[in-house]
């Protein structure tokens, strides 16, 4: 066993060795695909993650994204903007610090929660089929993304405990924020206008 291992290792290290047996050994692929932090599919063609960057491009290519809902308070890097531009990915900035529509002149901090109106804006994009495939992302893919997904789940008729369980799964060691959960619980799902003809199939009520 150990002898086999060492010979394989030796051959492995020595690339000039053209032993045919060597080719039969399976290797990890050279290209490691790196999804963004906290990536997870939510529904068909709807994904969530932390802030995507250029190192995720081979992964993002697979998703054929049409829209990124950018909830982070910071702007994406130039090379990432370029990537999106080149691939015709529409970035919807929601909840930015320098957002044009100030909410009652209130300045936004990166650690602030989203507001009802920003959540609604995000959901209004999500309920339209034409924007798919969509990636929802924020800095770490925890709280802001979790807020929007949480409200979407309520829109889908999930009970609050299940919504909270999912939210907390993505919040890391420091756990969930009560304020986020209050926001999800208090969000008026009837304020989202859904045109069933234009909604993704999984959202349709049967």
């Amino acid at each position, binding site marked *: 066993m150990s002898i086999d291992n060492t010979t394989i290792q030796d051959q492995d290290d020595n690339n000039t060795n053209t032993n045919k047996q060597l080719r039969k050994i*399976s290797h990890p*692929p050279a*290209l*490691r*695909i*790196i*999804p963004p*932090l*906290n*990536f*997870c*599919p*939510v*529904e*068909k*063609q709807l994904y969530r993650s932390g802030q995507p960057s250029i190192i995720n491009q081979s*992964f993002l290519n*697979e*998703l*054929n994204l049409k829209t990124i809902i950018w909830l982070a308070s910071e702007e994406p890097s130039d090379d990432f903007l370029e990537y999106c531009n080149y691939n015709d990915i529409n970035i919807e900035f929601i909840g930015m610090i320098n957002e044009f529509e100030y909410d009652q002149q209130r300045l936004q901090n990166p650690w602030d929660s989203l507001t009802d109106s920003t959540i609604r804006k995000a959901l209004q994009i999500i309920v339209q089929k034409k924007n798919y*495939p969509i990636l929802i992302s924020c800095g770490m893919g925890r709280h802001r993304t979790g807020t929007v997904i949480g409200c979407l789940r309520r829109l*889908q*008729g*999930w*009970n*609050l*405990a*299940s919504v909270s*369980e*999912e939210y907390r*799964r*993505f919040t890391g060691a420091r756990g969930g924020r009560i304020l986020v959960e209050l926001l999800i619980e208090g969000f008026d799902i009837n304020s989202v206008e859904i045109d069933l003809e234009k909604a993704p199939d*999984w959202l349709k009520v*049967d």
Partner: protein
Amino acid sequence: MSMTDLNDDPFQMDEDFDSSSNKKLIYTSSNSIPPSQNDIHYMRSNIEQLKLENNNTTTNTTEEEEKFEEDLDDKLDLNLQNKIQLEYEKQQLDNLPLTPPENFALVVGKIYRSSFPQPSNFSFLNKLNLNSILCLIPEDYPILQNEFLQDNNIKLFQLGMSGNKEPFVKISSELITEAAKIVLNPKNQPILIHCNRGKHRTGCLIGVIRRLQNWSLTIIFDEYRKFASPKERPMDQQFIELYDDAEIKKHCHENNLLPLKWD
């Protein structure tokens, strides 16, 4: 109706139960109430009893369990309770909010993962239009879950893996390979993978699927830990890393299954 109204009645009875003679008490009490009484208290108390009963069988020692299984009366009673609960749920289907099983998530394409689905999850699962379910635990599939599968024409695959803890080397690569073949077969999709908690055995299988997608190991582990939290097992992660994917890759290439499609 306030919360206390709902709680008082059935819970008071539960507290009175002597845990050793629970089964008998449940049996007699469910018979003493006329079945025609279509009262929410009655339904609820039956569900509470069923839950109690289920808890009991799992915590019983194996000897006690065997004794109970031989007792025909108990079996019949359980069936009755199950029927009642099913009826109750069908009634409530439209009113209740949807409850996904714990640790539920979409994995890729039409592959889903979760913990063991409970009757309260059935109305949610219905929406997924599942073709099949892959169960990774060796125990017999419960009656109620089986009925749900039959009612909805869902195929059940069962690959019993022992969820050994300490030297957890026991998880079998061969079984994981078999499991992956089932899951990746488009004919079986949409498919739901589950074990008991949806953490370890399911996590290992998902890890293997992620490797087929060429994900970096760091991200695979991160995903594994998210679902296994707070009971992450280093040995599971080691399994995911060291799993020899030669056979499953060959299978995938022969059947043209790769790359896995996101939609």
